[in-house]
Every structure is written in C-alpha cells, then in structure tokens.
C-alpha cells in the first residue's frame, strides 16, 4: 500500500474506474481476443452469472440541479472470480457475453500475476477509443448550429 492510505485508495479506485470504463465501452471482439491471451490462467469461477435487467438512468440539466429520471435502459452485468479476485462487468444494452468478458478482464486486471499484461492491452484499447472519439467530434463540430437569443434592453 502507498504511504498515504487515503490517496493510495483513491488512486486505486480511479484506476479501477478507468479499467471498468474501458472494458464496458470496448467492442466485445477485442475483449474476446484479450481473454484468449489468458486462456492458460486459473479457471475463472462465475460468482454472479451474467444477467440482463433494466436500469434507471438519471440526469441533471447541464450537470447540476436536481436529478430527474431520464428513462430505463437495458443493461447486463456479471461477476467473475479468478483465484478469489473478483471482477465486475457492466454493459449498457443487453450483451451477456460482453458483460462476462468485461468481468473476466477486470478480475485478471486486479490479479497481481496478470495486471501488467492486461493493463498494456487496455491502454491500446483506450488509445484507439480516444482516436475514434476525437475523429467523431471533429466531424460533428462542422455541423454545429449556434443559437442566439435577442435580449430586449428595456432597462
């Protein structure tokens, strides 16, 4: 553990958050490939079998203000254990195989023997995703419409 317990925990949580985000947003074929790289690892145990259900998405106007219920979306989740290390996988939209693979990769990423190689694979996925996002944003910016409101200067 890092000298400063609280900071160390926060950093670990941040890494975990990034890992779960990457796994959730990456194409399942990529996770399938990563999982196949670790085929020789100890047999994973399914702790909570993949299941699909409804999740209420809540929002806040402009990111602040009171939360309101936006609507329900289908989501899948799964929990896998590799030698006692639990991995959690969540996906927006129903895809139980994807949830299982995300949970498996999360567990491997938390396992001290596999954390390094998994992190390298995930870093590559993150780079690719960042490129896609910035390309999409560049395309979208050309279609932006600016709205202006005329204010009456009565006072």
């Amino acid at each position, binding site marked *: 553990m890092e000298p400063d317990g609280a900071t160390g*925990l926060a950093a*670990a*949580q941040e890494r*975990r958050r990034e890992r779960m985000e990457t796994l959730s947003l990456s194409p399942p074929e990529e996770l399938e490939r990563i999982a196949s790289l670790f085929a020789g690892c100890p047999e994973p*145990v*399914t*702790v*909570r*079998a993949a*299941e699909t259900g409804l999740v209420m998405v809540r929002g806040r106007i402009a990111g602040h203000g009171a939360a309101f219920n936006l609507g329900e979306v289908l989501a899948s989740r799964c*929990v896998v*254990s590799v030698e*006692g*290390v*639990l991995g959690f996988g969540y996906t927006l939209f129903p895809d139980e195989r994807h949830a299982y693979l995300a949970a498996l990769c999360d567990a491997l990423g*938390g396992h001290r023997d596999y954390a390094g190689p998994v992190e390298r694979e995930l870093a590559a996925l993150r780079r690719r995703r960042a490129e896609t996002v910035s390309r999409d944003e560049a395309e979208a910016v050309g279609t932006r419409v600016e709205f202006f409101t005329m204010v009456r200067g009565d006072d």
Partner: protein
Amino acid sequence: MEAVLAGIAPAFRDHPHDSQKVFRLALEAMARPARFLEADFAGLFPAPPPLDPAAAALILTLCDHDTGLYLSPSLAGAAGYFSFHTGARPCHPSEAAFAVAGDLSEAPPLDALGWGDEACPDLGATLVICCLPGGGGAVPPGMALRASGPGLGTPLEFAGHGLTEAFVGERELMRACYPQGVDVFLTGGSLICALPRTTALERSRQGGRGRMRVAAKAGGGQGGRGSAGEHRRSGQGGEGECT
C-alpha cells in the same frame, strides 16, 4: 477494494429457474406442515461452509434488498455472501424479516422476532433453523411430536430433530396471538420442513422416539425440471401421508 470483496462464493447458476424451484418447494413445505421434503440443494450451488445448503437456498430465494436478515453468531461470517447476492441488510432480530440460526440453541427466542401487528400479521418474521440431520445416512431419532392444524387432515406424528420442550412451549404461547406470529423452517442438507404459525405442536401421546419419514423427493439440481408436480402426485399415494 479487491481484498474486501475477495472470496465471495457463487450462488444459483441459473438464478431465475433455480430460485423458482426452491420457492415452489418452500410453498409445498408450508402447505404441508411438519413433513420432511427432500431436494438436492447442494447440487444447485456450492454453499460456502458453515452455511447449510437448504437454508442458504431458502435465503437466496426469499430475501431481497427490502428484507432485513438476522444471522446467528455461528453464521455471521455469511453476512457478506447474502448481502452480495440478495442485497438483504443485516439487522437486529426484532427488525428481521428472516432470521437464520445454526441450531436451536442459537436461535433468538420467538418473542424477540417480529410477529407483525393486527393489521398486517404477514409482517411476522420467518425463522430458519438448521437443525435437521442432513438427509441420507443414519438418521438419529428426534423428539416425538404430534402436529395438527391447517394442512394436516389428521394429527401427524413426526420427529422433531433438534427441537426442545422449551421451543414447543414458546410456540404454544405464540399461537395464542394468532394471526400474529412467526413461521419456522427447519433445514438440514437436502431436507426442509415447515412449521407455520398455524401448526400446533405437542408431545406425542404415543411416547417413544420420533421416526423421520421423508415425505417425498422433490426437485432440485439439473435433473429436477418439473419435479414439483411429480412430487405432489407422489404425495397423494400413501407413504403415511395424512389426507
């Protein structure tokens, strides 16, 4: 974070169907009090020790994030397992919808549990006592008891494994407050037996020791598809059944 969550054992492999099977069995047990029903709970999932497979299956089936769950001291280590799989929150016996005890000596007294109130007697707690001898192998005789009440056409002699005079007395006092009260499940390995609040217990007049009679084999495990129905049919065909 990993360290805190490490080592949670799996629950039902096929949660919707497995929990429906167990729920059907629990209904059957409540409808036919003081009879021992058998099912392969251990085949459904590997219950982490010291949990009894039948009790674990009942709790995984019946509890959710709205139910308070009390675990007796010897089972307290399983609190994380149940809160992970069901969301049930650990609580004091008086607030528990379900209480599980490793044996009768650990069980909270019946009057320490919620009995519901006059408007809502359904809020009474359910007590699960892991006191049956597990099914299979040599079965030690239990305290000879006689059960009567709804679901029992004529009084039924049965073996009250792990039960005591004091427990029978407590239940008699509780029955005076009907419809308020506590429903009891006795479990062990592959066996469950229900003592709903309507069932009256007394010392068997025949004396001697009770003999365990497993009413019927019911569903459970992979091969148990649709067996709850078969079980009901086989129950009508004798085996000392009271109708």
